[in-house]
């Protein structure tokens, strides 16, 4: 199997395109997740997605659409509860994380028959991305890029110093909820690529590496997108050649790169 013969398959082209789209989203949103320290929240949101996937199976609708509903619901619930119920975000993350998974398990148990791609949703299978999912990913990327582009300065202000943003009367509450929804959208895109369980790795590793390279949010986003594209592409090729799971391979490539960057930093 050569590189050229791989590239001639439509499924392989789709996989590479899905990797690029996911990398754009996770580079931009992952950067904010890293600098605002929202990795755990993102983990909660991604695991809540499992509830939506289960519901999708149960109702016979597209599971990713169910995941979209559940991630946005989980994001807004955590944001609202933190502001209104005076609960620690830590606690809310734990609750939402497990509740989402539990709902998913129940729905799948209640669904007659066999849930065919369940494993794919949990661990990702980028080599099987259907054309329709690519379209959904394209729409989500457009929404993320446009929203972040419009709100960029506000988002930087509110993630850098939320209290000061409140004092100068920025709409802090709405901005934070918008940010949580953007994370939810990104998570849904990444499910197809690496699966629910591995989402936070792809969301954080490219941005964490690019943080070591620059002290500017915009540059950090750009580098994170490029790193993400490099890791997903490399991971897809390696997994195709060695016939091993693609999601896990992408994560391990990213983690290896992160390890190298950290080691290099130690020896400098």
């Amino acid at each position: 199997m050569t590189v050229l013969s791989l590239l001639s398959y439509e499924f392989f082209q789709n996989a590479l395109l899905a990797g690029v789209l996911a990398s754009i989203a996770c580079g931009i949103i992952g950067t904010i997740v890293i600098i605002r320290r929202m990795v755990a929240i993102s983990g909660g949101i991604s695991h809540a997605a499992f509830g939506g996937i289960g519901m999708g199976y149960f109702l016979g609708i597209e599971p990713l659409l169910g995941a979209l509903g559940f991630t946005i619901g989980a994001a807004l619930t955590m944001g609202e509860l933190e502001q209104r119920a005076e609960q620690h975000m830590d606690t809310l993350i734990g609750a939402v994380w497990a509740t989402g998974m539990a709902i998913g398990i129940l729905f799948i148990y209640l669904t007659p028959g066999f849930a065919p791609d369940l494993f794919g949703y949990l661990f990702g299978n980028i080599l099987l991305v259907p054309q329709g999912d690519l379209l959904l990913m394209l729409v989500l990327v457009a929404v993320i890029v446009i929203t972040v582009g419009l709100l960029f300065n506000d988002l930087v202000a509110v993630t850098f110093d939320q209290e000061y943003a409140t004092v100068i009367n920025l709409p802090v509450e709405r901005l934070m909820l918008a940010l949580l929804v953007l994370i939810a959208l990104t998570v849904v895109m990444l499910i197809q690529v690496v699966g629910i369980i591995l989402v936070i790795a792809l969301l954080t590793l490219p941005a964490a590496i690019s943080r070591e390279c620059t002290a500017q949010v915009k540059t950090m986003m750009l580098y994170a997108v490029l790193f993400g594209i490099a890791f997903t592409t490399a991971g897809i090729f390696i997994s195709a050649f060695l016939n091993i799971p693609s999601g896990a391979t992408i994560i391990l490539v990213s983690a290896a790169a992160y390890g190298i960057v950290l080691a290099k930093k130690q020896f400098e």
Partner: protein
Amino acid sequence: MAAEPVIEVENLWLKKNNQVILEGINLRVMPGDVYAILGPNGGGKTTLLKVILGLITPDRGTVRILGGPPRERRHLIGYVPQLRTFDFSYPISVREMVLSGLLGRKAGLLKTFTDADTALADKALATMGIAHLANRAIRDLSGGEQQRAVIARALVGDPQVLLLDEPTVFVDASTETRFYDILENLTRSMTIVLVTHDIGVIASHVTKVACLNRRLYTHESRELTEDMVKEAYICPVDIIAHGQPHRVLRPHPPEE
């Protein structure tokens, strides 16, 4: 004609977990005042500033900023929070951070910064004596430089009053004098409320002093009586004395 107070606090009470944090606070800051609020750690100083800014709702009493409610008027205040609340590892340049102080006055979805905004930011940085650091990342600055950058962010919007929370905690000894010179320059042109646990900060340019330890012991001059300080701190401390131009503190006893 009597001028309107910049900040007016009337009979303010705040409880948290059944504990009284602020008790019957009355405070009136007039234009041109350089008002120092002293008090021990945990005395409620930062909390009082947050109530003034409308970040915390009091149980009783009113706060007015230039005659209006805090949430409508707080953008006229230049707020300088405590440095220890910052995440200075955030990837942002000094100029970008100062520019963010202008976001509140921009309307609409897409808020971009104009050349005029950049000029305002650079002017604020020059006032604080750190114009040369504009393009540096804040994480590469010293504590004293970071403090000045945060004050520049408060100054950029041309506020009516500057609210400083513990502005000297992270100022390194080598730049301390210069820092006080800059503060002193600011006191000539603006109204300032300064909160600190370090009464050594009080220099000759302070016009009013109060002590806060749950209750506010005010004094309509820069004179501070020993009783006020004792009451506020519970234990006796150095007090501020008249007649000395720069440090209005009683000298420490010579070291043994």
